[in-house]
């Protein structure tokens, strides 16, 4: 059985996802000690911009994301935002692309600071995903992460996925691809108002269908909950064992309180601040 981590990084005009992946790979090696494969639409950048980083990865796979890119608003704290290209359609192809029998797929903005993901390999279920998450700030509304729309199905996070190469998972990932190819139909069917394709939504819909179009246990959850900071928070510093974040206070727009995490994995949604923190650290 081969095991490894897959990261997907498709840069846009402002966010350097490949740099995030290059940074993330060090912590993955340190805490999980697993081989890492990068899937990107611009592997040539390793010949020019990221020459020193190529050797960090065990494999670099070129993959052109499906269809046209969409545009979404990226926030940078409360006061700033920018519409940018969103090239997120490679995830549905990861089943075919991964070189491993057992794969952990991580977003490049998930920072690893413990070895809890290794527990995936000790359990029997072939597909794990996060359903429950925890906001770094208590009391803020997290309703948007409960269901994919007001009158629709459970929300699952495609941010972290563990899967084995089984027939059922092949059917599942093919279904995600089908949903992606027919996104407009499915988003209307599931009452999603935004036309922007989101992996979280596509995976949630696919899980619902695989469960017989009802609630069920086709997927199981990772142990624990995924800690996340929203794009209204600001990552300030990355340490060896955690991060320092300025968290927007509940019901106090624009006012922040500091939070230091230690040995906890965390999903950073403010990509601008993640890029800045990485560049400051280098």
């Amino acid at each position, binding site marked *: 059985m081969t095991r490894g981590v897959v990261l997907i990084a498709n840069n846009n005009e402002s966010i350097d996802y490949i740099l995030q992946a290059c940074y993330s790979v060090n912590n993955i090696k340190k805490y999980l000690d697993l081989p890492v494969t990068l899937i990107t639409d611009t592997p040539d950048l390793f010949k020019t911009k990221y020459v020193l980083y190529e050797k960090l990865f065990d494999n670099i796979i070129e993959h052109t994301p499906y269809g046209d890119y969409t545009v979404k608003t990226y926030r940078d704290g409360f006061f700033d935002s920018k519409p940018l290209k969103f090239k997120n359609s490679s995830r549905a192809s990861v089943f075919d692309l991964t070189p491993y029998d057992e794969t952990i797929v991580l977003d490049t903005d998930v920072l690893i600071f413990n070895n809890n993901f290794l527990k995936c390999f000790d359990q*029997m279920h072939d597909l794990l995903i996060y359903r429950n998450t925890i906001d770094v700030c208590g009391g803020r509304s997290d309703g948007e992460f409960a269901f994919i729309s007001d009158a629709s199905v459970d929300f699952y996070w495609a941010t972290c996925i563990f899967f084995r190469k089984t027939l059922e998972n092949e059917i599942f990932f093919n279904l995600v691809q089908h949903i992606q190819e027919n996104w407009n139909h499915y988003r209307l069917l599931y009452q999603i108002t935004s036309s922007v394709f989101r992996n979280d939504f596509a995976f949630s819909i696919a899980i619902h269908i695989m469960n017989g179009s009802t609630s069920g246990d086709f997927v199981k959850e990772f142990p624990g909950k995924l800690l996340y900071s929203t794009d209204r928070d600001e990552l300030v510093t990355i340490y060896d064992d955690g991060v320092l974040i300025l968290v927007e206070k509940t019901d106090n727009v624009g006012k922040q309180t500091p939070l230091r995490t230690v040995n906890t994995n965390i999903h950073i949604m403010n990509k601008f601040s993640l890029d800045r923190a990485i560049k400051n650290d280098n």
Partner: protein
Amino acid sequence: MDDKLKKALDFSNYVIALNNHKRILSEKYQESVVMYYNGGKFTVNQTLISFCKTLNDLHQEGTILVDDDTIPIEISNIKDFMSRALNEYVSATNTYLVEYRKLLKNRSVAGIVDL
């Protein structure tokens, strides 16, 4: 600003930061007491450990436990299971205690975030 109000607002800021850190420590603890055994997922707690101890005291070698996902898991060696569960529990609670005490010792926002 009135000094009384300033002190109250400073304390309020401290409480917000403290509560956020407490919550994350608690979640971290919940995650660290999850143990996988024979493919099953078990959240280790006092009840589970006591039950295993009872079986062991009754000279049972094995048993079947229903895991967190309500799947029956065959445990052929209760002693080994109990030993691992106890280790996970002691390690997780010790870490929790140390980090919790460290957190409470700091009486300022700057202290909490270790600046």
